[in-house]
């Protein structure tokens, strides 16, 4: 492919004890693309997500972001004997950053079950995400020697809230917002970290058809506006088929298909995974 890779996941295996949750998973996201990850319940989608965002260190495999290796691991210690996956000796380095380091590199995420700072205001929720790139230390911040920086953070937050249509609610407690707006706030908060790649974990979960239609438009919009690449997990097939340019399908931790929406819809293995097969 001639296009520029933003994210490249190579041979990622995640094994918990004896259970292989994700097996030898490889994928890539190109610049400006919207890529979907689907699969039946328990297929390992969120685990794959968590490997990318640093919540788990994968048992084996490597993840590159903008050409830089950000995560890399191979089975070591106890896992050496227990390891059931492939490509055992392929990666030598161990790089296992915490989620905040990944976010700093420019990968932001949202969560399957909304995780807002629920008793803080909408404004503070977004403002907290601005803490990451602020030039200050605890001394200058405490004694207000960072006035300019603080002002910049507040202005950027306000601008972002306006763009997302959340400025009316800026002083409301986050948990008092209706569900759809909470989702939107979570995305706004992720955008506040200035990401290059946005990972959305079931953004349409719990939404009615109208809301998820709106969301579809919204995701396309923010991609263009903030020059993002987007990688999302979703169950709503309509949404996935509607906006994703490429789709990966996981089943029991194994990638069973990849391609554009049409190819996926007609792929017999995908149909088998979702609907079962005639005996």
């Amino acid at each position, binding site marked *: 492919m001639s296009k520029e890779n933003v994210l490249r996941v190579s041979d990622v295996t995640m094994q918990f004890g004896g259970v292989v949750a994700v097996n030898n998973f490889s994928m890539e996201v190109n610049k400006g693309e919207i890529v979907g990850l689907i699969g039946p319940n328990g297929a390992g989608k969120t685990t794959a997500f968590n490997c990318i965002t640093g919540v788990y260190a994968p048992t084996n495999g490597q993840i590159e972001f903008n050409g830089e290796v950000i995560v890399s691991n191979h089975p070591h210690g106890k896992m050496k004997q227990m390891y059931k996956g492939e490509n055992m000796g392929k990666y030598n380095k161990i790089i296992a950053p915490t989620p905040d380091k990944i976010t700093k590199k420019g990968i932001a995420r949202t969560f399957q079950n909304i995780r807002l*700072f629920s008793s803080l205001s909408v404004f503070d929720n977004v403002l907290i995400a601005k803490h990451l790139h602020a030039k200050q230390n605890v001394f200058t911040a*405490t004694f207000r020697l960072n006035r300019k920086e603080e002002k910049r953070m507040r202005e950027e937050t306000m601008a972002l809230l306006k763009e997302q249509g959340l400025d009316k609610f800026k002083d409301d407690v986050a948990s008092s917002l209706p569900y759809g707006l909470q989702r939107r706030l979570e995305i706004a908060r992720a955008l506040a970290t200035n990401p290059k790649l946005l990972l959305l974990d079931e953004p349409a979960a719990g939404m009615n058809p109208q809301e998820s239609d709106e969301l579809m438009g919204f995701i396309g919009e923010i991609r263009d506006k903030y020059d993002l690449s987007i990688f999302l997990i979703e169950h709503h097939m309509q949404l996935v088929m509607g906006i994703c340019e490429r789709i990966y399908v996981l089943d029991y931790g194994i990638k069973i298909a990849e391609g554009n929406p049409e190819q996926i819809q007609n792929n017999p293995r995908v149909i088998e995974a979702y609907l079962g097969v005639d005996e």
Partner: protein
Amino acid sequence: MSKQKKWLLSCIAIAAFLAIVYVLEATIPKSSQWSMLFTVLEKGSIYALVAVSMNLVNGFTGLFSLGQAGFMLIGAYAYAIFTIPVEQRAAVYQYFDGGLVQFTLPVIVSILIAGLVAAAFAFLIGLPVLRLKSDYLAIATLGFAEIIRAIFQWNTLGPITNGSNLLRKFYTYDSALYPIIACGICIAIIVLLINSSYGRAFKAIREDEIAAEAMGINLFKHKQMSFVISSFFAGVGGALLAMFQTTIQASAFKAAMTYEFLLIVVIGGMGSVTGSVIASYLFIACREWWLRFLDAETYIGDFKVPLLRAGFRNVVFAVIIMIIVLFYRKGIMGTNEFSWDALIRWFKNLPKNIKSIPGRIKNIPNKFKRKSKKEAQINE
């Protein structure tokens, strides 16, 4: 009200308060029963500082830490060791040939050192301990405080800590304004920190660790920061407490002391600096002054008032705390802070609230009635 007006009002209030304390101190004789007021003001301020520092970790960062007494102990000892005059050291360290430290530092420097030593200990303790969560962290910090207490009583360290003997004759203040101003400055710094970008990050950690981390907040770094800063001010509080008590002994800094602060923080409201300050003054006033009469045997004519005897104070105190916790589940202030607007609103609504009290009391049985009606309906 405009911002400037509020500032002006705050400045006037603080100046007036300090002036009143100054005048009262000059007029009330030491022998008067009212001199207890100064005990309350001094000890209350010191307790307020330590309670606010504990609130920073427990209420704002959401870490359940119970090491406060340990850090106060370190601060108190560091302060005392550096300010005992050289000529007095032979008398104080009588069992240890005058001790190892043979110099005296200025008071302000010693107070800062007290804070810094406590902070340094917190940094070292934090490295392993802050990887733990909730109850486990509480147990680990509590254990640390007890270990520190034991170590400071250890005879081998006697030349520095004077073993299990008293430390005394160090510099103490002579005006109640001293601890009030010192604690005021420290609390102001903590409030500034809480309202800064870092304070917001602490609150984010309290709300949701996973989300905070996904927003790029380095959990360990920020927890460590909160813990170390809190311990710094606990150390300063310890130094001031040493000054207040004029003598110190490691055995006084028991786990029970930490629970006092925990009580203040909970009663005042987890996540409210104002609440902690109000609660510490109330706590000290009740314990040291207002409830004292309960401990004394009292006769009205020939009649001996029943129940009043040494220790009864604690029973009443416990009941009061239970009542507060029952009626103010989130503490006196919840997570609210003092503001002039809220104070004015409170005074405006006061007559209305007082009028509604009889009605509310009448309503209490109704609440139960309604419930029983519902139950009756269900039974039907």
